[in-house]
């Protein structure tokens, strides 16, 4: 018998094994804010197997799009995504941190060409793009200006 800390959900997504403390950021990535229309449970600091703690996010009637998955993979490289249908886990996948990310993080270097605006306020027709040098700790390097992004989590788009 499974132990549930919150009401089981019928259909939706459970994001499990989120690094402890990161659940609120995951919620933000999913665009869940005060206008939320489905049941969302956030469980933080749950003891997990190896003397460690994890966070869990459960969202009813909602699945994740590829961009959201990429962002979650960056923030919480150990997360598993469980698709729940009719109360059962029908699909379980581990997120896979990508080798390159485009369009989900912006470069923090204000003088990077990806942050340039012309006199008419137009921008260059490129998405900011990074090479993922490591996931723990998260290290991203801008493919344009070659700078390492100091605080990727603060620069999610």
């Amino acid at each position: 018998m499974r132990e549930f800390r919150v009401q089981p959900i019928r259909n939706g997504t459970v994001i499990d094994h989120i690094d402890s403390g990161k659940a609120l950021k995951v919620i933000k990535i999913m665009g869940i804010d005060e206008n939320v229309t489905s049941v969302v449970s956030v469980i933080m600091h749950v003891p997990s197997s190896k003397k460690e703690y994890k966070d869990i996010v459960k969202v009813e009637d909602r699945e994740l799009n590829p961009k959201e998955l990429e962002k979650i993979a960056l923030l919480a490289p150990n997360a598993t995504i469980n698709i729940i249908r009719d109360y059962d886990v029908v699909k379980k996948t581990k997120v896979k941190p990508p080798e390159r990310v485009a369009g989900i993080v912006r470069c923090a270097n204000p003088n990077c060409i990806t942050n340039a605006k012309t006199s008419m306020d137009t921008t260059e027709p490129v998405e900011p793009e990074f090479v993922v040098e490591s996931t723990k700790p998260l290290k991203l390097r801008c493919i344009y200006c070659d700078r390492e992004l100091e605080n990727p989590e603060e620069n999610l788009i």
Partner: protein
Amino acid sequence: MHMLKMKDRDVVSIGDFTLEEIEGIMDHAKKMVPIAKGEKKSKALDGKILSTLFFEPSTRTRLSFESAMLRLGGEFIGFAEPSVTSAKKGETLADTIRMAEAYSDVIVLRHPREGAARLAAKFSSKPVINAGDGAGQHPTQTLLDLFTIKTEKGKIGGMNINLVGDLKYGRTVHSLAHALAMFGAELTFTAPKDLQMPEHVINRVKELGVRPKMEESLENSIEDADVVYVTRIQKERFADLAEFEKVSGAYRIDMDMLEKAREDMIIMHPLPRVNEIAPEVDSTPHAKYFVQAFNGVPVRMALLSLVLGVRK
């Protein structure tokens, strides 16, 4: 060194090239010297057009690229100041590049923003050569610095190369240190504590197996040097003028300082210099900074002909 694959390559960062490729470019540059001096004539790039897009002023780099193109029988179009371009009218760099790509065979770009050359390379099927992108890369400067050491000293590996001055903000010294380490040079970094080489450069150099020596006093470190590479210390880095004057005085190369140097030590400087090297030093055999500036031409001739696939 026979299969140098340089045709259509972009030259954005020195890190894009292997040691063999850099050696190949230098070998090619050596053959260009008599043409660069005007002693021999060449029509190797006859019919080819270079775009020089300078969104930021530069004298040496722009003139040496233009001279390089003309010496090889090619021609150039472009601008030396952004005020006359459509960037002022709101055109993106990407669009300016697409235009230059249509009008010419190779593009040289100087831009105030880091990453501009990488972006340009993405939008152009014609080769793009980075002539400096903000505080980023300036690979042709690095190549001509390496070429100068190679031609003046015969080799780079094993040489004791002393980088002096503002090592923290100086854009040329970071990629130069990296490249010198690739060649197995011995490195000394001589700078005031607050202007020492950034940690990430030191780490990269160490990864390449070089243990740089850190020094504060040029008087101490000049003795062992085969090459002294001087950079300018800028006033703006100091809160107080007296402190600036004291520091810049301690790193100035004059006849007294030279007494401690080896007889065959050479002095390099990316120029323009202000007070870092006393004018009397110019006429000593140590002074190689004007040769170094000249070397910009054969090195850029070599790059232009290699990326255009012309090898004569």
